[in-house]
């Protein structure tokens, strides 16, 4: 139980108290009490706001001013919802992903239209209306438990001030009554009142927290981003990665061509041009022949560079399938590689290419950073997933820090809804696995 209180607690230094009293030393307990008590006035205000603005707006739709009123109400509800989401997070530790901001269409009418169709605003309106019963509940529970508890604990102090009541025995009793004729006025019964007070007070933080569960549920369901909004956000992010990635690739190819083959071909043309000039001038043929040798060598180098570049864009071996492409990669690796693959047949070309380049980069990482003497590739399909794992016996400590090569790979894998997992304790061994859905979203 104690662990539950630790989880998400904002307190850093907790005063030492006996276990049962510990909750009272935590700021979160008091934050939750505050949130519960504030829930009632907030609930009343929000309920009134939503009901009044929506009904006034609704009634005035026929004279057109209704729609702007509903739009303004929605936009305000959105802000209030964001406020509740934040205060719920700060005070009670409920972390809910924020819904995306509204991107209204241009112009006043665009704004009104966008606001009227804003799902986030309507969900917030629903929360504001529900906040009334939620606030009543949390307020009621909090007041009941804390008042009963504090009242019970302090009973001996305030009992003497109670008025005298006549019991069944006709005598005067100074004390609270449980039931019509059961007065807490004997030392034992006073003690009983205190014990009940202590128990209720100790239970109060738990009761308040339990009552807030309903509010948490409503915050999660109505004030957070929906699944589809989260999906859109993820797709937007990975799309950006994909676009940046392909732009960077094109730039790199252009640079490689410009600095490599293109420069070499200019030099070949220049050298041949000079040789032709020499021959036309009737110079020593041996000199022209030397120039042609240079041009010949340069031309062969240019051909080699073009071949490497073309292979870097799309390795022809991929056309025969991922399994044989991985074989080629393993054979060309600087570190000895053992390949184990159970991939049968062909997969989606986009997925095969993705897997191929990931493995190529992972093997390059192994050769560059790991100091490994042996690496392994395990590739296979499991249901609708392709899993490729590259392991090595190197020094470990690989990490997907932002901006690192592995983070870049993870981003790229995410563009096809795949994941990259790194298991690399210091001292090794390292295993980096990528899991990608075989359908690549094409038919999904």
């Amino acid at each position, binding site marked *: 139980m104690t662990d539950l209180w630790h989880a998400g607690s904002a307190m850093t230094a907790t005063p030492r108290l006996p276990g049962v009293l510990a909750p009272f030393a935590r700021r979160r307990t008091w934050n939750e009490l505050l949130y519960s008590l504030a829930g009632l006035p907030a609930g009343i205000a929000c309920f009134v706001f939503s009901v009044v603005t929506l009904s006034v707006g609704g009634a005035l739709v026929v004279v057109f001013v209704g729609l702007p009123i509903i739009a303004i109400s929605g936009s305000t509800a959105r802000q209030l919802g964001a406020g509740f989401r934040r205060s719920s997070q700060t005070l009670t530790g409920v972390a809910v992903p924020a819904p995306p901001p509204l991107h209204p269409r241009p112009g006043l009418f665009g704004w009104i239209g966008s606001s009227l169709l804003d799902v986030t605003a309507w969900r917030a309106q629903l929360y504001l209306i529900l906040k009334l019963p939620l606030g009543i509940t949390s307020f009621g529970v909090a007041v009941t438990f804390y008042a009963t508890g504090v009242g019970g604990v302090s009973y001996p102090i305030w009992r003497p001030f109670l008025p005298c009541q006549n019991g069944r025995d006709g005598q005067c009793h100074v004390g609270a009554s449980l039931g019509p004729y059961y007065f807490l006025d004997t030392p034992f019964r006073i003690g009983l009142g205190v014990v009940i007070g202590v128990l209720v007070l100790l239970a109060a933080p738990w009761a308040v927290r339990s009552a807030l569960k309903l509010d948490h549920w409503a915050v999660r369901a109505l004030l957070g981003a929906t699944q589809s909004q989260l999906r859109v956000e993820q797709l937007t992010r990975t799309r950006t990665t994909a676009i940046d990635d392909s732009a960077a690739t094109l730039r790199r190819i252009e640079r490689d061509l410009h600095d490599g083959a293109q420069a070499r071909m200019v030099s070949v043309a*220049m050298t041949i041009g000079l040789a032709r000039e020499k021959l036309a001038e009737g110079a020593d043929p041996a000199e022209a022949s030397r120039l042609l040798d240079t041009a010949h060598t340069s031309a062969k180098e240019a051909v080699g560079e073009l071949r490497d570049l073309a292979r870097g864009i799309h390795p022809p071996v991929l056309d025969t399938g991922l399994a044989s492409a991985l074989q080629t990669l393993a054979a060309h690796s600087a570190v000895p590689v053992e390949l184990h693959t159970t991939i049968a047949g062909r997969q989606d070309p986009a997925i095969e290419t993705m897997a191929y380049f990931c493995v190529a980069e992972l093997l390059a990482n192994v050769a560059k950073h790991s100091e490994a003497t042996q690496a392994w590739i395990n590739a296979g399909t499991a249901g609708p997933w392709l899993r490729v794992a590259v392991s090595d016996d190197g020094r470990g400590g690989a990490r997907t820090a932002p901006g690192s090569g592995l983070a870049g790979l993870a981003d790229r894998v995410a563009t096809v809804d795949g994941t990259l997992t790194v298991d690399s304790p210091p001292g090794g061994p390292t295993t980096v696995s990528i899991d990608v859905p075989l359908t690549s979203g094409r038919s999904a």
Partner: protein
Amino acid sequence: MRIVIAEDSVILRDGLVGLLTDRGHEVVSAVSDGESLRRDVARHLPDVCVVDIRMPPSFTDEGLRAALAIRRAQPDVGVLVFSQYVETRYAAELLAGSAKGVGYLLKDRVADVREFVDSLTRVASGGTALDPEVVSQLLGASRRTAALSTLTPREREVLEHMAEGLSNAGIAAVLTITDRAVEKHIANVFIKLALPPSENDNRRVLAVLRYLDS
């Protein structure tokens, strides 16, 4: 000629030095970035410098910036800008104000050694050398289609060579016609396009380019 070369590709730089030395010119300095180029041009005051556009550190238009700075600071030094692509915008920047001692050529042109060295010599002696590719881009984009369509094919060729910066004698040599014929074609072109006659080759280049670009 005394020449400074700025080219970041080692192959091309060495090739150019070899080629120009072989053709009897003196390469006083060969550098690989704009900063060094400006320093060495100021120090050696060569007849001409050959400048690659894309050089470190920015790998964008470093060379062009350096070339423009040299045109301002050392107007007597010819500047031949040398690139793997031609951009009309770069040509316009280079020729803004004056076409004296300026050239802009595709790197491929070096394959025709004699023509390349001729262009370089022309730039060194204050003339202009504009790549045929730039001229054809300008012609292609020109809005003066009506007037241009009145030119005969031969006159159009003459116009293109004028825009490239060739002298009358140069045009005559390329088209293998007489100087007299060239003069006649030029006179016709000027009349058909309503251009003011101009004796100076550089002014003539500018006049033609402005006409095409307007």
